[in-house]
Structures are given as structure tokens and as C-alpha cells.
């Protein structure tokens, strides 16, 4: 396995976390109820914190400082899935995305916790507990809203239908996939996807939400290779607006 392969893996994880954390932070102060506003903000902070941990791993591998990496690249240099860059939408969409993303994240972190590279395994082990809470949070909300009222059921179902093709885009494979699997870094995207489908199916069933047959859903790929929706570049322009006024200044 080359270092390039490893970096590619770390970048896609970090970029997903940063962009999703950034998106979810948009709810802080305008959430649907005070307690949830607080909980959702904490998880957004966790996500940004996780990305920082992975950018630090990349820095140890010779990449630039996390601030430079996060705040100076353009959209086509980002490896995040298109899923995480979509606007926050209605709260139903943000919740469904959180549910679909964090289930995948938990599986990924469980795998990375067994990674032969100690630095990566340590980060995964350390942060796993936070994702465990995120998944508890997501599952409870799905079960609460999936069958509470006709209104909430319909909103959650349509958010789910909208999200699924993009969610499958999380598992877009890289050219280094087999190298990483052979080196035992993790079991690969296909393995995560398989387990993810099992896990979310169980919760969705309990929530009274229906899952279309998987072969009818066309995954939206491209994000991992730098191909993004029109939403990412404006997000980055906004995120870096102050920083770019003087990237060498100490803010």
C-alpha cells in the first residue's frame, strides 16, 4: 500500500466530517426546540473536531496544517461525498442525513479502530464513543418521527427518498480500494455499505418508514473524485471568507 492510498482514505473521511459539521452548525440558534438545538450543535462540533483529528493525521504524513488544508482548497480538491454538501433543507432532511451518515461512520470507525496503523486506530478508538451517541440520537429521532403523525411520517419518508441516492454515494470506491483492504487498513467501502444497509433497515422498519428496493436507487458518485454539486464551492467561499482576507494572519 502506498502513502497516497492512505492519504486518499483520510482525506475523504476528514472532508466528509468537516462539510457535514459545517452544514449542521447552520442549525445552531434556529433549531426546532431548544434542547435539540443544543444536542444538534454538539454533534456538529464533534464532526468538525473529528475532521481536525484526521487532518492532523494527514499533517503527520506531510500534508499542510489543518487550517491551510481546510480553508484554502477549492471544491474540486475536496474528497467529500456530495451527500454532505447538500443544503440543510427542512429539519427532516438534516435528521435523515444525520441518521444515514452516522450509521456509516460508526461502522467505519469500528473498522479503523482495528487498523494496524496505531495513530489511526487510536483516533478511531478515541472518537468512537461520540459517534455512538450520535447514532443513539439519530435512531431515537427516526423512531419518534417516523410514525408520530401523518405529517411527520410523510416528511421523514420524503426526506429519506431524497437522501438515499446521495447516501449511497458515501460508498464510492477509490482506485486504492484493494490496496487498503489487502493492507488490512479497513474492510473497504463495499463491506461498510453491506453492514450499513442491514443496520439502517432495522431502524427504519421500527420507525414505520419504508425502504425502496436497493436496486431501484441509483447512487450519486463523483464526490470522492472531486466532482461536486453547485453547493460546495459557495459553502467553501463562505467558510473561508474571513480566513482568506489574510491566510498568513493570526486570527
Amino acid at each position: 500500500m502506498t502513502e497516497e492510498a492512505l492519504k486518499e482514505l483520510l482525506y475523504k473521511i476528514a472532508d466528509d466530517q468537516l462539510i457535514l459539521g459545517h452544514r449542521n452548525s447552520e442549525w445552531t440558534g434556529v433549531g426546532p426546540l431548544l434542547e435539540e438545538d443544543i444536542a444538534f450543535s454538539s454533534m456538529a462540533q464533534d464532526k468538525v473536531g473529528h475532521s481536525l483529528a484526521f487532518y492532523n493525521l494527514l499533517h503527520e504524513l506531510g500534508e499542510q496544517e489543518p487550517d491551510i488544508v481546510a480553508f484554502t482548497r477549492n471544491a474540486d480538491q475536496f474528497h467529500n461525498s456530495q451527500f454532505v454538501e447538500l443544503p440543510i433543507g427542512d429539519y427532516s432532511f438534516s435528521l435523515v442525513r444525520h441518521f444515514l451518515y452516522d450509521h456509516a461512520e460508526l461502522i467505519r470507525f469500528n473498522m479503523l479502530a482495528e487498523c494496524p496503523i496505531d495513530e489511526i486506530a487510536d483516533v478511531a478508538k478515541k472518537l468512537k464513543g461520540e459517534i455512538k451517541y450520535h447514532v443513539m440520537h439519530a435512531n431515537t429521532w427516526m423512531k419518534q418521527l417516523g410514525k408520530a403523525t401523518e405529517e411527520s411520517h410523510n416528511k421523514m419518508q420524503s426526506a429519506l427518498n431524497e437522501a438515499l441516492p446521495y447516501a449511497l454515494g458515501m460508498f464510492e470506491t477509490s482506485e486504492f480500494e484493494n490496496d487498503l483492504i489487502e493492507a488490512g487498513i479497513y474492510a473497504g467501502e463495499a463491506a461498510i455499505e453491506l453492514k450499513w444497509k442491514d443496520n439502517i433497515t432495522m431502524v427504519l422498519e421500527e420507525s414505520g418508514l419504508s425502504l425502496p428496493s436497493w436496486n431501484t436507487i441509483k447512487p450519486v458518485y463523483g464526490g470522492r473524485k472531486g466532482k461536486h454539486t453547485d453547493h460546495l464551492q459557495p459553502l467553501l467561499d463562505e467558510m473561508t471568507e474571513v480566513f482568506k482576507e489574510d491566510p498568513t494572519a493570526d486570527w
Partner: protein
Amino acid sequence: MYGGGQVFESSSVNNELLKDEDPIKLAEFEARIARGEKIEPSDWMPKLYRKQLIRMIEQHGHSEIIGALPEGTWITRAPGFKRKLALMAKVQDEVGHAQLLYGAAETLGKSREQMIEDLISGKSKYSNIFNYPTFTWADSCFISWLVDAGAIVNQLANARGSYGPYCRALDRICAEESFHLKYGHHCVIHLATGTPKQRKMMQEAVDRWWAPMMHFFGPSDKISTHTEILTKWKVKMATNDECRQQFLDMYVPKIWELGLTIPDDKLKKNDETGEWEFTEPDWEEFKRVINGDGPLNKERLAVRRTAEERGAWVRRALAKNSEDQEYTAPLA
């Protein structure tokens, strides 16, 4: 974050409320406060005490939830990881403070949703300063440091008040505010000692925010029977002037040491009296803004209302899941 300038009701209404209280119970109540003991929710209390406390705590809660908006303006633009994480946490804290304060007010018998309704409909007030815009990153730094510093002066005073649940909420809030204060100071120091562009940005923010900051503590208190009784009952713990003086004493030197200029020629400490002298703030402007005509009153309430309306389906669904359960006011 909350300053002075609470809107209390006129004395005639108050006297009416006080008239038919049981003198023996009232004497016991006042004796407990005089001994320095806290009042707890199930204790007997005068109707006027309950009413004014609800009003004060509620206004404080509203100031927190609306106070999340001006700094929230910069959440998605904070420069660098450290600032990004801190600002998210800071604004989150403000929402958390609103949650704590509404909970304290609920122990007095007003429901949270009623308070929120009164906020959005314009019936109850919040701190005036949040009706001003944050044009640049430096504006948000000014708020984090100095508006929070002002709030701490006020909140530390109130934390010595007589109502147990409010004091407990304030203890927690003040502990979190110490992070806000240090974070805000840290941000301002970096701008003020940074590049010429950063310095300029910071100075402009000070220029914009100084007047609202002086308004923050409210006009001089008029001594009336009404404030006397609220002071005696330890509802109002410090006068607006005392808070303003304390703030100036603690923070003007810290602003000056960063080479920043405060836009008031008359601002200086009188060595003889030990009091700060300053240009009298424009109280007409203060009144105008508090009555709804500030730069952003409309936006602040529109945003809060939108959050409430768009989140309604979520709360409706959760309420459906718990419809068989009966609400009990919080215990403490």
C-alpha cells in the same frame, strides 16, 4: 447575556398587587430573605414577587435566545478550526442559557411556550443590544468579549438574589460565561495586535458597538418605592449605574492597553470620586430601539418566528407521542 434596563411594571399596578397580601406570611417571607436564605418554588411568596421575577427571568431568557443570532451570523465564517469550534460552542451556550432560564421561570408558573409566544408576538422584551448588526468578524469578537463581560457583571449580581432556581441557573451560566469572556478577549487581542487590516477591523467594531454597550446597562435607575421593594426582596441586586461603573472600571483599561480608541472624548476616571465620567448616552435612541425601531428588531423576531413555525411539525409530532402525559412544573 443580559444587561440592565429590565422593564418592570409601573408602581400603581404593584401597589394594587401588594395590598391584600397576608401580613404574617409577608413578614416571614421577608425575614427569610433578610437572613440570606433563598426562596424555593413551593414556598409562599407575594404575588408581586412572583410576577416581577417571571418578568425578569423571562426577559433574560429571551435575551439569550435572541443573543444567539448576532454572533450566529459568523458561525459559518469563523476563521480557522479553533475559532470555528469555539464560536459554535459559544452560540450553543446562549441557547443553553435560554433553556436554563426558561426552566427557572417555569417553576414560577409560566409555561415555556407561553414565554416564547410572548417573545415572538413582541409582548415581552429582550436586551436591546441584540438589535444591532454584526457587519464583520470583529463585531462578533466585540460581543463575545465585551457584551458578555457586561452580562457577567449583571449576572454575578443577580446570582446573589433571593430566588433559588434563578440563582442556580445563573451559577451555571456564569461558569460558562467565563469561557465566553476569555474566548472573546483572545479573539480581540489577536485582531488588535495583528495586521493593520485586522486592527482596523477591530477599531471599527469598537466604534460601532460603544454606544449600544453603554445602553446595555439601561438608564439611571429612578429611586421609587417600587425599586425599593424589589431591592429589599433581592430581585434587583444592583443599580444600572453600579453595573455600568463596574464594567467601565474593569474593561476600559483592558481595551486601552490593546491600543484601541473608545469613541467618547469625555470618557475618563475621576480620581477624586473614583467614578467614570462619560458622555451621556442617547436615551431617546435607547427607547426607540427598545420599542421596536432598532436596525434589526424586525429581523430578530422574524428569524425566531420562522424557527418556531418551521419547527412546529417536529414539536407537534413529539407532543403526539406524549399526549397522555400531564405537564408538571419543574421542581427546582
